[in-house]
């Protein structure tokens, strides 16, 4: 038995966590929202998701080839980006603008800055921000009532109806019932409307320990408190509920703000970050030109994520609060 074994550093076993598994769990968590979108908006919603995911995978592969990087398509993060971007556009969004958003997200926001884990800004929201800059109408007009063909590739004619966010920004409560808000029977982007589906996704992410409760709770909590305190109309509670369930807060708080690479990694910083997202969202809802402010709120907080991790005091083992040892 004069064998020579390879000596590697401890630990000699690893858990079965992998990036691919985590991204897979995020995709599973997104399934209820995708299914709800198809039920609410028809086949076109599914087409948007599939086309966007496929485009992101292609762009990811191209980036890897061009920069001679290890092929990273298998980690599924590009698929997640593609689906997330599709979920935050309305069903009337032309495919080509979505693909342009995908290209910007994967190539510029993520790829050129170093790839997965190195990006400062959430790729999907970066892509969405670009689309809002160039083609704001395709992003913000929502609420088609006529069926749109899934195979209509150009710009789409549709009958616009006010989204709950647009009504809220005029200082009025939407006509939709709270149940409609929960189930998604109202205008908005294909993935943000069905709160129930998003909550099921959240439950999966928490159960699988992909994310902690901190960022979503701090985010939604901040929105709830601010909309309660600064409520318009005479029913503050209703005002708060519509503010929380309308628009992209839930989609943003559960799936966008919790993106690992672009949010803080330390527990305390995550709370501050979540509150920051909520506060900025409300400020942009009040003062912004768009009725909704989730995209820019999260993007700005993305920029602060690393700084927050660095800024908050570190607790050292054996050193109690107040500084003194023992």
């Amino acid at each position: 038995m004069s064998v020579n074994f390879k000596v590697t550093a401890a630990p000699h076993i690893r858990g079965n966590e992998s990036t691919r598994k985590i991204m897979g769990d995020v995709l599973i968590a997104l399934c209820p929202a995708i299914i709800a979108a198809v039920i609410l908006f028809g086949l076109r919603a599914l087409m948007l998701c599939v086309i966007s995911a496929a485009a992101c995978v292609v762009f990811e592969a191209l980036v890897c080839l061009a920069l001679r990087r290890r092929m990273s398509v298998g980690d599924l993060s590009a698929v997640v980006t593609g689906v997330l971007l599709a979920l935050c556009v309305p069903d009337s969004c032309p495919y080509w603008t979505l693909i342009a958003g995908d290209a910007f997200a994967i190539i510029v926001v993520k790829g050129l800055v170093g790839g997965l884990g190195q990006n400062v800004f959430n790729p999907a929201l970066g892509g969405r921000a670009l689309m809002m800059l160039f083609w704001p109408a395709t992003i913000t007009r929502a609420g088609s009532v006529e069926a749109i063909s899934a195979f209509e590739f150009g710009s789409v004619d549709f009958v616009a109806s006010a989204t709950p966010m647009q009504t809220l920004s005029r200082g009025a409560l939407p006509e939709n019932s709270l149940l409609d808000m929960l189930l998604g029977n109202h205008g908005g982007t294909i993935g943000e409307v069905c709160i129930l589906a998003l909550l099921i996704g959240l439950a999966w992410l928490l159960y699988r320990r992909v994310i902690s409760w901190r960022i979503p709770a701090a985010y939604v909590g901040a929105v709830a408190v601010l909309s309660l305190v600064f409520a318009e109309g005479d029913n503050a509670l209703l005002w708060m509920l519509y503010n929380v369930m309308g628009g992209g807060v839930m989609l943003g708080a559960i799936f966008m703000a919790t993106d690992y690479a672009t949010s803080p990694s330390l527990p305390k910083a995550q709370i501050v970050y979540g509150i920051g997202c909520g506060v900025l969202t409300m400020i942009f809802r009040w003062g912004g030109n768009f009725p909704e402010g989730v995209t820019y709120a999260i993007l700005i907080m993305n920029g602060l994520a690393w700084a927050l991790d660095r800024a908050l005091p570190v607790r050292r083992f054996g050193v109690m609060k107040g500084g003194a040892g023992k």
Partner: protein
Amino acid sequence: MKQLFGGGIHPDGHKDMSRGGAPVPVPAPETVCIPLRQHIGAACAPLVAVGDAVLMGQKIGDGEGRCSPVHATVSGTVTAIEEREIPGGERVQCVIIKNDGKDSPAPMTGHASWLSMSARDVAAIVRECGIVGMGGAAFPTDSKIASTAGKTGDVLINACECEPYITSDDTIMCTCPGDVIGGAKLLCRVLGANKSIIAVEDNKPEAIEALRKEAVDEPTVEIRVLPTRYPQGAKKQLILAVTGREVAPGARSGALFNVTTTANVYRAVMKGQPLLEKIVTVTGDGANEPKNMLVRIGTSFEEVLKAAGGIKEETKQVIAGGPMMGKGVSGLDVPVVKGTNAILCLTEECDAAADPVCIRCGKCVDVCPMYLQPLYLYRYALAEDREMLNEYFLNDCMECGCCSFVCPGKLPLTATFVKAKQLLKKGGR
């Protein structure tokens, strides 16, 4: 049960593989290799020369200062004193003894009347018998007795054995509970403590049962059952789990003894028996018949594995110790030393990813039992940024491996920290 310290992981235990029954004695080998340093501290000087005849149990190496003597584990003739590799990869002076097969014993003097003994007396006996901490660090036990006598409220006996796969502490508790409880009583008395708390994880029900039976009517011994979680057996985590108190950075951890050490202290005092053999768990999916073996110190890994039924051809790594903190060995000619509690044979390699990517998931922060930030320490370590490594308390890292274990990007976190600590040591502040 609620976990009692922060962070940590719950890997598959794999303890049933090797658990159960009395340890199987490994036949005394033809030659033994006794390293002159098997502990933290100064190496022993040899007390014998090539050609000398030695008796089993005879002291063959000793030294000044924090040093623990070593003994011949067979009777026979010294054939060489030379440098050999020991588990962990270090090369150390070793005494090679050719076994005459007679096991002619050196005289031993026991002290059954330990009740009247002082801590100093006990420390002297323990030192003479070469007892060191058997939980891994191999700190000379007499030093610990001397430094904690009269200064401790409770004595803590570490019976967690939180590393996966290993069941050697478990076996000693199941098969020799009397020695464990005796040692716990003895340490409590000579250190002037209120009681000894034996901390066992709840994945060892038989050991708990055996200890409880033995400790009935022992007011100075408490069996404390803890929820299983790695690394609960790390000293700071165990003290936190048992007392609720965090040991301050740099402070001494106090009267904390491994359970096998405790049993050996008892044997040393009662019978004058030096540390000649120990229970070694042979386990892992590469072992043909995982079980516990009773091994004389200085027996080669090869002979232990042969006696235990051999290993599979597919075995890719052999580890001295557990999978989390054990050290890989390159060949099987290394000897079992006082600190060897397991020989783990695994058929799978565990390399870091070729191109590891941190996705900033923060799982390493969640599991770090020392509240460190492995993801940032990793960056600073790669950048060799001494200032930031100090600011983020790299030296608090005890290399438990939890961060590497959970990392989905398969970053070589722990290994990088081991190297970075060397950097800090070399470069000073």
